[in-house]
């Protein structure tokens, strides 16, 4: 089973304080630490477990620049056999559709049985996987929480839906799946592992290598553009209770009683 995992390098929300910059039109980027998008990491672990059982190898790809190589190395240290950087100035400023276009061109140069993405990244868009599938005319399933390889080029996948319920589907290979966190327990990748792959060369493919029409990607082709970042309006917000803890507790109990709680 040849598996491709599409990964993205994002600012880690738990290790960064996301704040607006002084101009108020972007976030403060000086002090950010980046890492691989968490759901993508779960996807790589899942891919590794599948090839452990069914044979094959895992390839990790990302659309970006030199800075993004570090996540490819990390996933290689985790066990992915191949890593590819898809990089070209023409790709910069792509919207989700543009990114999916680049990935599609890469997929068509190779032979993958299964393509995995994380369910969503820092922008919460959750779009590239589904778009890529449609471009390739592969079936797609999102929010996948378990994968079982069934004979005859099929998978049985479980999707997370409301109420904690699970929707079980059968899906034909080749297909695209977007992976939800919690699907497995990713193995640890230590500093030593990363050091061991530090000098492995990572092939870079540009627009020409991929046969991508510059007119379909990048900022110019993007139909959806982010204009700026701003602080979410506070609105009415909560009424903050004041006073000592005892006073606040008493106020709270009063309010809860009034609202119909508390016997």
């Amino acid at each position, binding site marked *: 089973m040849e598996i491709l995992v599409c990964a993205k390098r994002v*600012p880690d*929300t738990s290790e960064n304080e*996301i704040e*607006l910059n002084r101009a108020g039109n972007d976030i403060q980027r000086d002090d950010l630490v980046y890492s691989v998008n968490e759901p993508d990491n779960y996807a790589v672990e899942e891919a590794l477990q599948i090839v452990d059982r069914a044979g094959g190898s895992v390839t990790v790809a990302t659309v970006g620049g030199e800075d993004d190589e570090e996540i490819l190395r990390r996933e290689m240290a985790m066990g992915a056999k191949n890593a590819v950087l898809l990089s070209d100035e023409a790709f910069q400023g792509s*919207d*989700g559709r543009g990114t*999916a276009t680049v990935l599609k061109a890469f997929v068509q140069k190779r032979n993958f049985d299964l393509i995995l993405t994380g369910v969503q990244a*820092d922008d*919460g*868009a*959750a779009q*590239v996987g*589904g*778009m890529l599938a*449609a471009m390739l005319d*592969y*079936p*797609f*399933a*999102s*929010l996948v929480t378990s994968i079982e390889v069934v004979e005859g080029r099929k998978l049985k996948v479980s999707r*997370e839906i409301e*109420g*904690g*319920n*699970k*929707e*079980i*589907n*059968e*899906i*034909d290979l080749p*297909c695209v799946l977007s992976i939800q*966190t*919690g699907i497995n327990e990713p193995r640890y990748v230590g500093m030593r592992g990363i050091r061991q792959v530090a000098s492995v060369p990572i092939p870079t493919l540009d627009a020409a290598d991929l046969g991508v029409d510059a007119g379909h990607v990048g900022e110019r082709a993007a*139909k*959806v*553009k*982010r*204009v*700026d970042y*701003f602080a*979410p*309006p506070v609105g009415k*917000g*909560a*009424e*903050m209770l004041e006073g000592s*803890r*005892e006073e*606040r*507790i008493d106020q*709270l*109990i009063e*309010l*809860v009683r009034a*609202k*119909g*709680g*508390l016997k």
Partner: protein
Amino acid sequence: MPRIFAYIVHKAGVLDDSAAELLAAAGRIDAAQSPTAVATGWGTELDAACEALRSSYAEIWKIAHEALAYPNAELVRKALLNVVPKGSILLVPHNHFGVDLSPGLSVNMNAAFVPDVLDIEGVTGTALKLVRQEFGGQVSAHVRCDISSGSVINIRPGAFKPVDSVQVAGQISEMPAGNLGGAKRRYLETVVAETGDVDITKHQILVSIGRGIQEKENVAIAQELADALGGAVSCSRPVVDAKWLEKSRQVGSSGQTVKPKVYLACGISGSFQHLAGIKGNPFIVAINKNPKAPIFRVADVGIVDDILEFMPEMTNRVKELQHA
């Protein structure tokens, strides 16, 4: 201005809240237009849903096919492609189904796609101006979408308040589903989550805990408060991921939907996935160490404090007052 369609989610003949929300959102795109509802399904359930739509949507397209009895995104996509004219704007709720359906659909329709929209500012020429959030809701972003070849827009559930609908007598049109054979993805079954010993959807008071509870042993602190208040303990996703409570206690878009009278969010940051599980406009109290936690934006009352100290003291006080 392209024609606006709204994809209707329904279950067992009952409309999902998003049906009304999409109507409101459509009004923000083009107040002059009356959007067309599109509903797929089969049998009496679809019939009932479409009937229910008649009081709010002027035009309803009903796509009935046995293969659509359970909403399989692959098949729904095919059916929609069959009937929705190119260049239209299609609104879909951003839930587990919308995430499955829309990205691919937008590619098939060659239309722009914007996910998880919170607010719509309006159209200028061919640019639709929207508001989204990024980084787990920590910042908002203005987004511009080129709708010259149409667009698929996923609307965040709960972001748009339903407007008082002008009573209409909607017209239902039966639309062809087209060829739905040869699906490469097939629905098998739904495994219902095990209900634990406590059904949080039935409680009026919920003491809900998040990552701020810090450790499994501390869950007992929340239980004591819930007992004193006569309620139950629920939680957000991280608590379930850490295996401190069972899945049946999770409130959120991938957990349970609850409609209590009082909701105490203790040590919960307030991600929208969690808030999506709270319906019915309860009295929300937020207790959190971090004064900048997003939960304070949606709570009615807020307290900045350490829940591990606040909760036990509150429990004692409640018991004191009860014995008095």
